[in-house]
């Protein structure tokens, strides 16, 4: 696992969901370097932190997490959106990004991380 261990940033405003996500990631051997609920915090971390991967909730108390996605894209950091909406909830710019439909299972999460990482590096 050690080789595939990633430093993951979580943006999720539902604490229980965040807890579950953290547990899943830890079980997979990843390291959660940030788990935040506010877009402003997430932007700061996305911009400054050493991150390998990010999982973003789209709708955070009415605000959308796309600004964070933009920063991540600029830095070339892979990420997935996790949302209760389907892909129609995405802005056009992010239409092609990977989406985790809530609720999701561990293997779905695992696959999403792998796919996103491949996409960016490839």
């Amino acid at each position: 696992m050690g080789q595939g261990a990633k430093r993951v940033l979580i943006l999720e405003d539902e604490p229980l969901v965040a807890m579950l996500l953290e547990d899943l990631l830890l079980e997979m051997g990843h390291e959660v370097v940030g788990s935040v609920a506010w877009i402003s915090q997430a932007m700061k971390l996305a911009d400054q932190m050493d991150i390998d991967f990010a999982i973003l909730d789209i709708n955070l108390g009415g605000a959308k997490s796309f600004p964070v996605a933009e920063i991540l894209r600029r830095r070339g950091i892979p990420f997935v959106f996790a949302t209760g909406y389907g892909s129609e909830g995405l802005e056009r710019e992010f239409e092609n990004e990977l989406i985790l439909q809530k609720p999701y299972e561990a293997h779905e999460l695992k696959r999403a991380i792998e796919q996103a990482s491949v996409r960016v590096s490839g």
Partner: protein
Amino acid sequence: MAKKSSKNEGRSGRDTIAKRVQAAEHGTVGHPSAAIPVVGIGASAGGIEALGRFFDAMSADSGCAFVVVLHLDPKRESEMARILTSHTSMPVLQVEDGMVLAHDHVYVIAPDTDLKLVVDRLKVSRPSEPRGHRHPVDVLFASIARERRERSIAIVLSGTGSNGTEGLKEIRAEGGMSMVQAPETAKFDGMPRSAISAGLADHVLGPEKMPEALLAYVHHGYVSAPAEVEPVVPRGEATIEDVLEVVRARDGHDFGCYKRNTLKRRVHRRMGLRNIATLSDYLDDLRINSEEVTMLVADLMISVTGFFRDPEAWKALGELVIAPLIAQRESGGSVRVWVPACATGDEAYSIAMAITEYAEASGKRFDLKVFATDAQEANLRKARDGIYPAAALADFPPERIRRFFEKLDGSFQVGKELRDMVVFAAQNLLRDPPFSRLDIVSCRNFLIYLEHEAQQRIIVLCHFALRPDGHLFLGNAETIGRHDDLFETVSKKWRLYRRIGPTRHDLIDYRPPRGPIGTGGAGEPSSTESETISAPLADIARRALLERYAPASVMIDEKGRVVYFHGTTRDYLEQPSGEPTRDILAMARGGLGLKLRGAIGEALKGDKSVTVQGRLHRRGSSRNVAMTVMPLPSQPHTGKFALVTFELGGPIGESKPSPIREDAGETSSGARALEEELVSMRVELRTTIEHLETANEELKASNEEATSMNEELQSTNEELETSKEELQSFNEELNTVNSQLQHKIAEQERSTNDLNNLLAGSETATLFLDDKLAINWFAPATKELFDLVTSDIGRPIAHFARKFSDDQLLSDAETVLRKLTTIEAEVPSDAGRWYLRRMLPYRTRDNRIAGVVITFIDITERRQGESAVRASEQRLKDLIAALPGAVYTTDAKGRITSYNPAAVELWGRRPELGTDEWCGSWRIYRPDGTPLPHDECPMAIALKENRPLQGAEAVAERPDGVRVPFLAYPTPLRDAAGKVTGAVNMLVDITERKRSEELAERLAAIVASSDDAIISKHLDGIVISWNIGAERLFGYRSDEIVGKSIMILVPPDRQDEEKNILERVRQGEHIQHYETRRQRKDGTMVWVSLTLSPLGDAQGRAIGASTIARDMTERRRADEHRKIMMGELNHRVKNTMAVIQSIASQTLGHASTLDEARNTFNARLINLANAHDVLTRESWQSANLADIIADTIKPHGGRENRFRMEGPDIRLTPNVALAIAMTLHELSTNAVKYGALSMENGYVEIGWRIEGEGASRRLVLRWQESGGPPVAKPSHKGFGSRLIERALASELGGEVRVDYASTGVMCTIIAPLRTGEVLSAT
């Protein structure tokens, strides 16, 4: 003196001033951190602002420690420390017990505590006084003064009441500095004013000016190096003596006897306050600045006083001195007390109260005089006013305050009775003669400031002033010193002494004032000087003679106790072993005692001189001793005394003849004659000396009498002054009354003149008759009716011929006198004129009937006009009665005076003439149907506003219920002068017109108010009418489209459709709910549903169409919305599913059994569902915190509710609400399983509140369990704790503390509520 006081050091008595003075004089510095000056700051209402201004200006490196005391709400935590932090860079701490003071720190009192400085620690205690009576500032100041002396600085800021004033006294007495906020800068000036008026403010400044003065003071040598009070003075430099000299010259006060160290310290303090570095500079300042001299004198004389200071000493005084005095003295006798150096009089009043209380307790009354004296006139003024702050009376029982004081705003004034007992007078104890024949002298805490020699002088003075067995009461650190022969100790501990022995004039030394006094003290300095010099010379001479020639003698009292030794008595008297004695018989050497006893007995009994020969055995030889006992003239109060002289004779057993006889042969007769002469001279001299002594004694006695007389005169003078003042004020009053009377007389004269002029000038014949019907006075016009001249006054009216026919005149006058009524009659005069004769009783001001007043008024013209008017009125009435319209008239007040039959028809009733007002209707309504009061009907308006109305509309209701709408035309009627005399009104029935109007209006209203567009048009499409609904729907105003074609609304692609519709209507068809699109004025399209009906003319032909168009946009938009809602619902459900997934995962992962997992999972889901319920109720916008909490804890509360909730209404966003719900659920579950709710009596308190403003606004929620089993911190974090921290800490960006206190779990949640975020919807 020094030894005595050092003994006291161990005692923790309240008054240890002497001790402290002592310590200061020795220059001892008790502890290392004493070097930090301590600034005590007291404030109350309005103080926070002042503190802010002070600390803004205060530098952070002053080296001082600041202690702030405020009145804080005892039930709330204080934010003071936080507030002050923003004003200073010094660390600000809330005081905890035992804190050690550090420099450049600020300490703030905690709520509901008292603060004291003990050595260098702050001691916190519970306040002993109930709330409202506390004086925490006084407590603090007093403790700082005690510990820091000159390094104590006290600041009094804004506040009400007098807190701080008492404390400042201590600060000043210890040599510290006081600063008081200038009252005009303080929000509340009670505390500053109290301090200033007590004369305790060294500086009065605005808060921002204080730091400068503070630093100057702290850096001055007085504070920074107090040990070197007076550095070695180089030659030619100024000394303290120079300062005293200037003071004496300029102010007249001589401080020569005061202790040098005290003086130096206080002078130095003044220099510190004035920021003057050297004594020479200060001396220069003193010479030119008389104000400073006054301030210095006031400072030098500072003494601390207070009511019943040292209560135990006062208790002792009461029990040991006052009680026996009261018991011995008979009721009605006089009791005299002297309180020298009384300062502001507290002690004088105390002693007066104590004696009065004791006297009343034993049912006696005395003429109590307390003489209270002080050298400072300012002190005396304050003392005479007798106004003290409430704090000074803090320890008094309420009865004492009621008995002796009157409340005066925030302070108390000594009652008149007590003030009358105490006589205040200026007297300098060191300079002026004392009072005399006193029962008690209370001279406390004054001696400690004096040099030893001066102390002793005052003790002697007190001895003189007291009557035998009178008592002296000294301060705790004072003693009678070496004069234990003058006083016997009553209580050593409480310094109570009783006078013994006779008056000792020899010890009294009236000091003449030293040198000339600046303020006109001495009258003839030259003559006084010569006397003062000669007196001691005579004394010296006398003393020398006595030493040389007088035999060894002792003076004894009638009990044989020695009171005075003279010459060498050791040959005859010696102290036996054992306790010292003064019994002369016990002291007499062997062989003398027996003889002496007999001689004393005989002398006293016979009141004559007795001489006996005794024999003195010494070293084997015996010698004769002649002992003479001479009774002295007895004096009042002193008892009897006797003088015992011893004269040594030759040795016995030597057979030698006497030397004189042996030498007789050789000695010349001249020498013998000289010797004899010497003997006789000696006798003569003795007699002269005795005479002198007696005379001297008498002089002193009369001097004593004169002194006391003088003092009596002074008090009489004072009384006379008072009565003089009373007389003056009485005189003043009389003057006022007199001028008032004069004023009244002038007024009366004027009104008499007015009346005379009025009556004389009037045309009315007026006649005043007295009660005998004789003429009192008549107006000139009366002469036309009677033949009267002025001289006829006083004659009966019956004697005069009348020029009119009136048989009733006299009988009417008598009737008026008898029945006190008014009688009127019309009488014709002989000249053919008519008069109204009016007769009324003449009443005086006290309502007595003194006669009759008769007036005659000419009414001839009136009588003539009346008949013409009557005729024309009749014509008018007939006319009106014949009119078909309703007509009626009223008088000027609106009372109906007439009406015609048509009016009765309209009203349906007949109004009562002269009673019914304004309108004859039964009821009136406004056109809109609301009741119209009669006095607001058109007629009333016309009369009140004095204008005619044209066609005012109203509705009359008949008694049978029929309502008649009418138009009114009221017109006011005026007389020739334009004055309104009444009004006429015509009413027009408009029932028919009204009915048709209403119908039309109703229809129009329906059309106008409809939300639908209602349009009527011709069959060719020209619009006829256009309602508001159409305006709203299509955007055209009525005037923009009426008269134009409806085709404007039809989009080009539907032109045919409209034509088709119009054609169908022409055929008479009704068209319903035709959905189509139309174009608005702004070009946008709108979906409408059309309903059309043909409009027919009277013959039934269709001539137009009415169109109703309904807007369909809303319905279509609702459909769209529903679709979006479905999507949102899907999102929310999925999110919730994710949450449930997480709960399931967490629950299953942590549970030990499947059963437990199921239960926990169920409970958590139900909790989640409940929270959703609350949110759903509020449409997922926000939720009330109280609802969330109530729903969460409901399942855990048990039968009786064991939760106590308290907090304001707060609305939270759904996220926060859910997080708090889940958190509380976990806490509750935990409490039921392991915590407070697992025990029978356990309960949980949940409290929340909002704190802070703006960006720092936050929710603080506290969960507190009580009454449960002891709590231990759990070994690992369960789901609950993890959730709490996750959900609340990171999620809300707040702070969560879970405290496993042994008394119960306590959880504090602090969540910031950011504006704009708190109520945003998810």
